[in-house]
C-alpha cells in the first residue's frame, strides 16, 4: 500500500513539473517522471512475495514465478516512450534553433 502511494507521489511530482516549469527541457523531464512512475506501478502489481524471475529452470522444485505479463507490457511501453522522447527532443532542438531559448514565455508565436 505505501509503495502504491509513493508511486502516486512520484506521478504527482512529474505532473507538478509539467504544469509549473517554464523550461521545455524541464517539462520533458517531468513527463519522463510520470512515465517512470507508471512503469513501476505496473510492475509492482505483478510482483508475488517470494517469487523468482520468470525464467524456467528444471533444478527448482515447485517454483513460484512473478507475473510475466505486466513485465512484457512494460517492456513494450519503455521502448515506445523512448521513441516519443526522441520526437520531443527533436522538436525542442528545432524550437531552440528558431527562437534561441528553451523558455516557453519567450515563444510568443505559439499563443496563436
Amino acid at each position: 500500500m505505501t509503495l502504491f502511494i509513493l508511486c502516486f507521489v512520484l506521478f504527482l511530482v512529474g505532473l507538478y513539473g509539467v504544469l509549473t516549469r517554464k523550461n521545455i527541457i524541464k517539462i520533458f523531464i517531468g513527463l519522463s517522471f510520470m512515465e517512470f512512475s507508471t512503469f513501476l506501478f505496473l510492475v509492482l502489481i505483478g510482483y508475488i512475495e517470494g517469487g523468482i524471475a520468470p525464467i524456467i529452470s528444471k533444478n527448482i522444485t515447485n517454483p513460484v514465478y512473478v507475473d510475466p505479463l505486466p513485465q512484457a507490457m512494460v517492456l513494450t511501453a519503455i521502448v515506445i516512450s523512448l521513441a516519443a522522447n526522441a520526437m520531443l527532443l527533436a522538436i525542442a532542438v528545432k524550437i531552440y534553433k528558431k527562437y534561441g531559448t528553451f523558455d516557453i514565455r519567450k515563444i510568443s508565436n505559439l499563443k496563436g
Partner: protein
Amino acid sequence: MEIILSIVLIFMIIGALFALHARDLLSALISCGIVGYGLVICFLLLKAPDLAIVQIVVETITLIIMIAVVLDSTRHELEKTAIEKKWKSLINSKALINVLITVIIGIVLLYSFRLAITHLNPFGEHILRMSEAYLYGGADKTGSANLVTGVLFDFRGYDTFGEATILFTAAIGVLTILRIKGRK
C-alpha cells in the same frame, strides 16, 4: 522487501524534486538520471531482469541525447523574474479561480487513485489469472525458457510488430524535423 523499495522510491522522489528545481539544466539532467537508475534498482528487486537491462540502455541513450541537446545552449534559467511575477499575480482576482481549479483537480485525482487502489490486491499477493496459461504451458508452446520474451515475441507478436513500426515512424519523424533544408 517493501522497506527497501520504499527507501529507493523516496530517494527517487527527492531526486525528482531536485531535478525540477535545479538552476542549471545540466544538473537537472544528471538528477533525472537518479530517477531512471533508481527505477533500474526497483526492477531488479522486483525480479524483472529484462526490464532492468532495457531501462539501463534506454536511460543511457536518453541522457546522452539530452546532454547533447543542452550543452550548446543557454543552460541557466530565467528564474528570478518568474518568482517576482508569481507573487504579483497572487494578488490578482484570477488567483481565487486558479486555486479553486487546483483543489478540484487534486480531489478528483485522489478520489480516482483511491478507487483504483481499493480493488487491487495488496502488494506481494498478486493472484495469477491470465498469465497462468503463459506460465504453465508457455515453455512447451514457445520453446523459450524466458517467459517474458516468450510472451513478447510469440503470444503477443503483433504487439511487438506494432512497437517496431512506432520506432521506425519515430526515426523518420526525427529525421524530418531535424532536416536542415526543405526540398523545393
